[in-house]
């Protein structure tokens, strides 16, 4: 997929992408207090990278996010979620945040903290996976490659 030929489009999208990323961090981390959270923030993060993929071209935007990272960070994020759940088994049941080991806070605070970790893990997984889906969908086929 080629880059956009217009300089303005390229420049503006390069300018906007970091802003989208900052906003997406806000969405993830402010999810405790306002609408938002891992899925929404992750989708926004993916959008910022996809914007660069669309305007700067597939090869050029590899600098921002390598395509082969997609299917590494995705499972990693989901794995983090799973492990966060599993470490609670020592005290309570799966995903029972009030039994977070090594953390001495009152239960409500502990839950709040664990929710944040989980949301970040979800954000990571969603971002990486959505980018990976886009990369796979937009990858040229073998036939187009050779011609």
């Amino acid at each position, binding site marked *: 997929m080629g880059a956009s030929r217009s300089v303005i489009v390229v420049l503006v999208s390069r300018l906007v992408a970091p802003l989208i990323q900052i906003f997406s961090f806000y969405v993830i981390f402010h999810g405790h207090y*306002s*609408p938002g959270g891992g899925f929404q923030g992750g989708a926004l993060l993916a959008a910022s990278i996809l914007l660069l993929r669309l305007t700067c071209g597939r090869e050029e935007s590899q600098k921002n996010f390598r395509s082969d990272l997609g299917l590494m960070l995705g499972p990693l994020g989901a794995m983090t979620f799973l492990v966060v759940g599993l470490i609670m088994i020592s005290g309570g049941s799966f995903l029972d945040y009030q039994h977070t080991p090594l953390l001495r806070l009152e239960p409500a605070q502990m839950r709040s903290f664990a929710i944040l970790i989980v949301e970040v893990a979800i954000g990571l997984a969603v971002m990486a996976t959505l980018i990976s889906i886009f990369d796979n969908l937009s990858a040229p086929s073998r*036939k187009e490659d050779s011609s």
Partner: protein
Amino acid sequence: MDSIHAHYPYWVVLTLLVIGLWGMLLKGNLMKKVVGMTIFQSAIILFFILSAYKVGGTVPIYDEALGVGDPSLYINPLPHTLMLTAIVVGVAIVGEALALLIVIYRTYGTLEEPVLVERMK
């Protein structure tokens, strides 16, 4: 009349559901089937969101001025959470459907079902 006033939103959702079902089952173009599928899923999401609404309720985020003594001041948070899941599921399915469509188009060069059936023979 009262009954109509209380239930017309369901019929709006129903209209969307029928449009979606129509698109999925009766359209000949595979891409239009995917569009129909999206409409169908969105209509179901609307249906759940509709069930969460309470007259006089506000967003389900803790407000010190309101407290939590009276739950009827907040709209119901559970359907919203469920639909967050359903939205993600919808995205995943559309992604996969598009992947399949790309493979089909590469193999047969068409997404029109009658042509496709012809070329599959």
